[in-house]
């Protein structure tokens, strides 16, 4: 059988030996046709393979040659003649790469994945604990030597994460207060207990929703910013540069952000409380026709200062969680831009989760104390 690329001739004397001669362009474009021709070559004890007719070849052509050479060799002897130096070099290069054993083959079965993730999470928690430990040492040092306090940075971050967030925090709280009031109004109206809408809104906003909504908004807004800022500095080696100059990143990057947030988050919660109640007041007026005076009068009766304090206690705790997770994730960024995205996402998800979990814990504790 003959094709443009391959001719073979069976020796007439015996059927034991055939001459194969290749010709034409052994390149990627023709690979399929050549392979079809190669398949047709019968299996015999000896093959003499003449390459002298090949006028063009590329690595794909040589790889095909290697594949069929190996296959023919399993049946019998193969003698290759008429090849050029260039073809030989290419053959050697590709043959070596063919024989390379893939050592880094990874089995990823289900159990292994669970095990690996567990170890990763364990290592992550351990690292976070180390981070918190370092942070407390830095804070303790700062108490001994307060002149290391970076007031300028603290005010800058207080402005960025506090003042700039007023609008979004106020608006979110207002809407949440409104939703609570609307939903409550429908139920309470059935019993003619309209006035209790004030209790529902005021206590739920001040004790639970105000702190939590603010914390969630700030986690998404400032926690992510902290991670991205510190992560970018990590990539450009600015943090290494700081270390070599003897500037502790905890003083320069972490503590200003932490203190700024611990100062501003309680203030933001206070702001959110006001707007949440205003939202409730607005909805009560619209839905139940409850006048502002009635609402405020009732508010005086039901909203003990205790509720306000219980809500406010949570704020610095949430601030601590958001700032430390945000900064910690920033330091975890490795040397590629993709990891900034991954860690920013992780930062927001982790801090929102921890905020909600802590909120649940606070509820349990408060109930335990009977307050």
């Amino acid at each position, binding site marked *: 059988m003959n094709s443009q690329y391959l001719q073979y001739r069976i020796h007439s004397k015996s059927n034991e030996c055939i001459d194969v001669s290749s010709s034409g362009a052994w390149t990627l474009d023709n690979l399929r046709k050549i392979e079809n021709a190669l398949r047709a070559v019968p299996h015999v004890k000896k093959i003499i393979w003449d390459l002298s007719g090949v006028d063009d070849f590329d690595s794909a052509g040589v790889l095909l040659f290697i594949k069929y050479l190996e296959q023919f060799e399993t049946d019998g002897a193969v003698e290759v003649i008429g090849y050029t130096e260039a073809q030989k070099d290419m053959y050697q290069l590709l043959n070596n790469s063919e024989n390379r054993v893939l050592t880094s083959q990874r089995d990823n079965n289900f159990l292994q994945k669970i095990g690996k993730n567990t170890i990763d999470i364990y290592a992550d928690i351990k690292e976070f604990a180390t981070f918190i430990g370092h942070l407390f040492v830095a804070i303790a040092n700062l108490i001994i030597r307060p002149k290391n306090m970076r007031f300028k940075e603290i005010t800058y971050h207080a402005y960025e994460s506090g003042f700039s967030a007023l609008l979004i925090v106020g608006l979110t709280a207002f809407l949440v207060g409104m939703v609570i009031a609307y939903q409550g109004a429908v139920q309470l109206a059935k019993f003619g207990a309209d006035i209790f809408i004030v209790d529902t809104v005021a206590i739920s906003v001040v004790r639970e929703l105000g702190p939590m909504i603010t914390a969630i908004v700030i986690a998404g807004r400032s926690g992510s910013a902290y991670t991205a800022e510190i992560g970018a*500095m990590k990539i*450009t*080696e*600015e943090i290494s*540069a700081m*270390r*070599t*100059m*003897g500037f502790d990143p905890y003083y320069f990057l972490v503590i200003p952000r932490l203190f700024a947030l611990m100062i501003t988050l309680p203030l933001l919660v206070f702001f959110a409380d006001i707007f949440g109640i205003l939202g409730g007041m607005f909805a009560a007026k619209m839905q139940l026709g409850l006048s502002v005076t009635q609402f405020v009068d009732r508010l005086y009766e039901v909203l003990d200062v205790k509720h306000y304090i219980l809500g406010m206690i949570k704020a610095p705790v949430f601030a601590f969680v958001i700032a430390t997770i945000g900064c910690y994730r920033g330091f975890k960024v490795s040397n590629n831009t993709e990891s900034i995205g991954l860690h920013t996402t992780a930062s927001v998800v982790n801090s929102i989760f921890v905020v909600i979990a802590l909120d649940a814990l606070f509820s349990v504790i408060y109930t335990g104390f009977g307050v």
Partner: protein
Amino acid sequence: MSVIKMSGIVTRFGDRTIHDGVSLHIEPNEIYGILGGSGSGKSVLMKEMIMLLEPNSGEIVVLDQSLRGISFAQAQALRQQWGVLFQFGALFSSMTIAENIEVQLKEHSDISKEMRARLVQSKIAMVGLEPFVGSLYPSELSGGMIKRAALARALSMEPKLLFLDEPTSGLDPVGARNFDKLIVELRDLLDITVVMITHDLDSIFSIVDRMAILANKKVVAEGSLRNVLQSQHPFVEEFFKNDYTKQKYLDKLDLKEVAGV
């Protein structure tokens, strides 16, 4: 007396060994090159010298101070005696060039504001930058200017020891030679010791006094160019004794005999 002495350094990342018993010593006032293929652990070795990483075992002594079990105060004092030029400058992006140079003076010294400003200007001039560059931000500078500005910052605490991570990478050939010249001038002028990671053959053949070649997790050759060229190690053969270096450097510098090629 050596400025830096490393002995028996072993570094592992997970189960990957980077250094397996690296030893070298750096003498005062020399320009010392750290060479090796990519992944040979040059940068890691330098990071260990400047306390950004800690080796798994081995002893590092920098300016007569052992880094093992170093106290916080000692580490802070040591850090003020050296300057580091990072590969991509690592200038603080939120500060101008002048502020970048000034920041260490501000934090670690009590000199007056006016004196600081003068020092900053002198450093800017020393590295060959125009005075107005001081008021620019790092993002407004070209690659070569960033290197110079970063060098000015590294020099701000008047260090006796300067670490350079690939100082000429990313510079055009003329800029790179000027930078080499600058390093030699500063070494002579300020009497400092320079440790640099480099791949730049021009730098190696012209300004480096002594060097260490890292390969196979060890130092396979250390010493002056002549000493290193006598090594038969495959990496040295490949790096120094190929056709290109033969024609370009070894012939001209009469080093063919030494290299045995």
